[in-house]
């Protein structure tokens, strides 16, 4: 553990030999294409598919009504209503294909199955749908306004739910404040944009009468349960396989209509049915992320101490409530790394006629870090203090852990000033401030404006309720691990193999880690929320401990000593007092499955363990961004970036660094580039790479990565999670840097993304 090893995944990937869903072909496979609503909100009056049915190669065409007998409505997240006594029907219902109403542009209303994909697409284009356009609300604030047209029948408004977290005497703190800062901040809507879109291949399974479903998903067990529910099957009749998956970033969590549709049609047609998302479909029909508006107010004393915080967030859930808990994670994380005694934080979650919003790398926590870290800079600017000093004034001190936040969480561990001090030192902060002062004093109109941005983040990781691992030592001594987590680029198979090698005394090359197949892995939650190692690793450590204990018992019998006499060395189990008397795991395994095994020891050498994390864990870090703004064009050049991240011990340092690189790329892109845009009619204006700015190779400087290491007491490895950390820290760091560059022109806030035109206008308006 902690060593630099080659990833087990890479040899096949660099040969182009990975097997992703769209690479799979089954005999007799049919292809599905969808008809999607061009309207953001419309009643479906009728569908004429006669031309499509007549095309050669078309097998069938189905509408929402056709699917009603085959599929129950899709699972929607509970918004908490009726939580005392079950669900209250509110008219919110989502079908595999829209039945009476389409609620966002891109919602599927009909499907064609054909012998080839081109035929399916051509046929889908001939289908005529008679739409009656309905009034559209694409803006979350308008969706809340009195008289806004409700998106769901039977509801009076577009409110999903509101949740408020209050503590202390906020009114009094604001009344007594030396200064109050207020700002409305947008956290713009983003697209996940994994380069592999979603893809599904469903095949009937004659053994169970159910289906085998290959899906590009992060959560195979959840998809299995949901498909079983919707198709009215037992869970053991549905097998979900996530083979190689080309990125997820949160948008491949849970089931989508296409998975149910392919499964139901495969069963009905008794043939494999495949659907592969195209890029426009991805932008229209795969969930988006973020999409919040926050009004924030902070009360501060003259020395920069924040005494109270108010937030009112309006969170856009899109057309269906798929992950309505995310805005409540934002308020839960509202105070960040700071000891703020008085809070009043509310999130109001609303429906709009847009693509549903759910998890995207960070999922609720980047929004919180952005708001509070921008607010710290606003307070610093208002008081004329250094942003680092204001942060230090307010940090939760290291001796306060475990720390109960006013929002009801318990931070397990943290040493925030250590991370910040390290980041500032690596950045050469004092020198940068001198350089900035010098440039401002010698204002040459052609010299780029220098900005330095700080962000100190804490995030919430280690989500339960459990994760699983099965460790099996094969009779020949090789070790097979099956895990409920489902990596899609994180290299978790490699990290797990390192842990197994270390804990069982077996060669790294003798270890196979299986994941992403509900038929061969124990129940699992999947890969999301930076939980794989913190929770999945906990299960793995539990199973390994049981296998190791048993191996020691068997070794003791074989060597005729007491089990306490056996110690595990690098590659053997040996007698402490006589190290030459040693056995390999293979020798022990052979005995475990043999007739010679004593009667009082159970046969075999394997264990399955479920780990239930006792509480959430809170990785943290400090980032510094250094930017130069072109005074002529408003273009922002990221000159330098320093990330100090504390994710606890690093089992696979290269993989951790890769996760930080990727997190930075996506977080910085939120600050400077990316934005999903709808017009007032709910039409998506950013449907391709020409309109949605995913960053490219030329965009980033080399990153400076460093770390502190504060292990969590809450899991056996002490690890905390790192998949989202850098996304969370980098958006506010870069935003703060750009605004810092313009601060002397009187700019105190700009909304993201900070593209050249916006920055140029801000500069132009101020001088």
């Amino acid at each position, binding site marked *: 553990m902690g060593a630099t090893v080659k990833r087990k995944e890479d040899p096949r990937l*660099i040969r182009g030999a990975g097997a992703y869903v769209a690479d799979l072909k089954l005999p007799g496979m049919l292809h599905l294409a969808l008809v999607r609503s061009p309207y953001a909100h419309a009643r479906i009056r009728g569908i004429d598919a006669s031309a499509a049915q007549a095309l050669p190669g078309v097998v069938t065409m189905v509408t929402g009504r056709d699917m009603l007998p085959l599929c129950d409505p899709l699972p929607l997240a509970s918004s908490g209503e009726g939580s005392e006594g079950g669900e209250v029907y509110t008219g919110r219902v989502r079908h595999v294909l829209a039945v009476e109403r389409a609620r966002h542009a891109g919602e599927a209303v009909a499907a064609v199955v054909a012998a080839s994909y081109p035929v399916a697409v051509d046929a889908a284009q001939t289908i005529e749908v008679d739409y009656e356009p309905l009034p559209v609300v694409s803006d979350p604030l308008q969706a809340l306004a009195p008289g806004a047209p409700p998106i769901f029948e039977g509801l009076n408004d577009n409110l999903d739910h509101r949740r408020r977290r209050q503590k202390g005497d906020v009114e009094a703190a604001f009344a007594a404040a030396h200064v109050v800062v207020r700002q409305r901040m947008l956290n713009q809507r983003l697209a996940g944009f994994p*380069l592999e879109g979603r893809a599904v291949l469903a095949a009937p399974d004659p053994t169970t009468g159910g289906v085998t479903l290959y899906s590009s998903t992060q959560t195979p067990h959840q998809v299995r349960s949901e498909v079983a529910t919707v198709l009215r099957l037992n869970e053991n009749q549905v097998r979900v396989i996530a083979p190689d998956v080309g*990125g997820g970033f949160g948008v491949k969590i849970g089931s989508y209509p296409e998975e149910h549709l392919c499964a139901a049609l495969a069963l009905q047609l008794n043939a494999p049915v495949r659907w592969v998302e195209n890029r426009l479909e991805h932008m229209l029909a795969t969930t988006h992320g973020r999409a919040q508006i926050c009004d924030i107010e902070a009360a501060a004393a003259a020395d920069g101490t924040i005494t109270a915080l108010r937030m009112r967030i309006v969170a856009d859930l899109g057309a269906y409530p798929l992950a309505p808990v995310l805005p409540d994670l934002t308020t839960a994380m509202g105070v960040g790394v700071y000891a703020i005694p008085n809070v009043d934080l509310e999130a109001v979650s609303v429906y709009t006629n847009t693509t549903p919003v759910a998890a995207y790398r960070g999922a609720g926590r980047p929004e919180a870090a952005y708001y509070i870290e921008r607010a710290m800079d606003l307070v610093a600017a208002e008081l004329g203090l250094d942003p680092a000093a204001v942060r230090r004034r307010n940090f939760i001190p290291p001796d306060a852990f475990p720390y109960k936040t006013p929002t009801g969480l318990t931070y397990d561990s943290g040493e925030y000033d250590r991370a910040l001090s390290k980041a500032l030192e690596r950045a050469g902060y004092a020198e940068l401030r001198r350089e900035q002062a010098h440039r401002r004093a010698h204002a040459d109109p052609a010299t780029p404006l220098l900005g330095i941005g700080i962000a100190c983040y804490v995030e919430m990781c280690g989500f339960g309720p459990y994760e699983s691992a099965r460790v099996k030592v094969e009779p020949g001594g090789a070790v097979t691990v099956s895990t409920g987590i489902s990596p899609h680029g994180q290299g978790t198979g490699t990290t797990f193999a390192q842990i197994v090698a270390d804990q069982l005394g077996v060669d790294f090359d003798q270890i196979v880690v299986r994941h992403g197949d509900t038929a061969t892995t124990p129940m699992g939650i999947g890969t999301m929320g930076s939980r794989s190692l913190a929770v999945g690793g906990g299960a793995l450590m539990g199973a390994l401990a049981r296998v190791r204990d048993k191996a020691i018992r068997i070794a003791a019998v074989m060597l005729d000593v007491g089990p306490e006499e056996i110690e595990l060395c690098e590659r053997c189990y040996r007698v402490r007092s006589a190290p030459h008397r040693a056995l390999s795991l293979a020798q022990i395994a052979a005995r475990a499955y043999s007739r010679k095994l004593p009667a009082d020891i159970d046969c075999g050498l394997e264990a399955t363990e479920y780990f239930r994390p006792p509480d959430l864990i809170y990785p943290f870090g400090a980032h510094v961004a250094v930017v130069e703004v072109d005074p002529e064009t408003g273009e922002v050049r990221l000159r330098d970036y320093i990330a100090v991240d504390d994710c606890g011990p690093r089992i696979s340092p290269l993989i951790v660094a*890769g996760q930080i690189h990727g997190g930075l790329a996506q977080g910085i892109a939120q600050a400077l580039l990316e934005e999903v845009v709808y017009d007032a009619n709910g039409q998506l204006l950013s449907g391709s790479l020409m309109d949605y700015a995913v*960053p*490219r190779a030329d965009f980033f400087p080399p990153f400076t990565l460093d770390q502190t290491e504060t292990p969590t007491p809450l899991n056996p490895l002490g690890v905390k999670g790192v998949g989202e950390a850098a996304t969370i820290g980098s958006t506010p760091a870069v935003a703060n840097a750009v605004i810092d560059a313009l601060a002397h022109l009187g700019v105190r806030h700009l909304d993201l993304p900070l593209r050249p035109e916006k920055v140029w206008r801000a500069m132009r308006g101020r001088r």
Partner: protein
Amino acid sequence: MNLVINGQTYQVAKDPPRVLLWVLRDELGLTGTKFGCGAGYCGACTVHLDGVAVRSCQVPVSRVAGRAVTTIEGLARGEELHPVQRAFLEAQTPQCGWCMSGQMMTATALIAANPRPSEEEIIAAMDGNYCRCGAYARIRRAVARAAALARAATEAV
């Protein structure tokens, strides 16, 4: 019509009109070349046409007849990896792996044309290949390393 792919001749139908990417993937089973955007922006489908990197999602298959196509499957010589593959492996470049074939095909064409690319030339050449996992720092390093490995291999001959 005959296509020469990775030195091997394949016979495919001339009609209906279709692009090289889908012929490779669906008809010939060469699935190492990936679909990313279908519009020529993302670079995931990059292959070589007479040694030049092209977007196979934009190339009509009729234009390919009689010319040499190389895909990711043709980069290694049997068990022996191409210097670009060795460098990408060494640098632990892949995360999800989806963009990697296109990245390596672009890098291979660059190095063939310019054995000593500068940092700026590497960035300019690789700029059309998106990596959503954000592995750009390692991609740049791997391409520079691949050029060095390729030069060493040439000098050794």
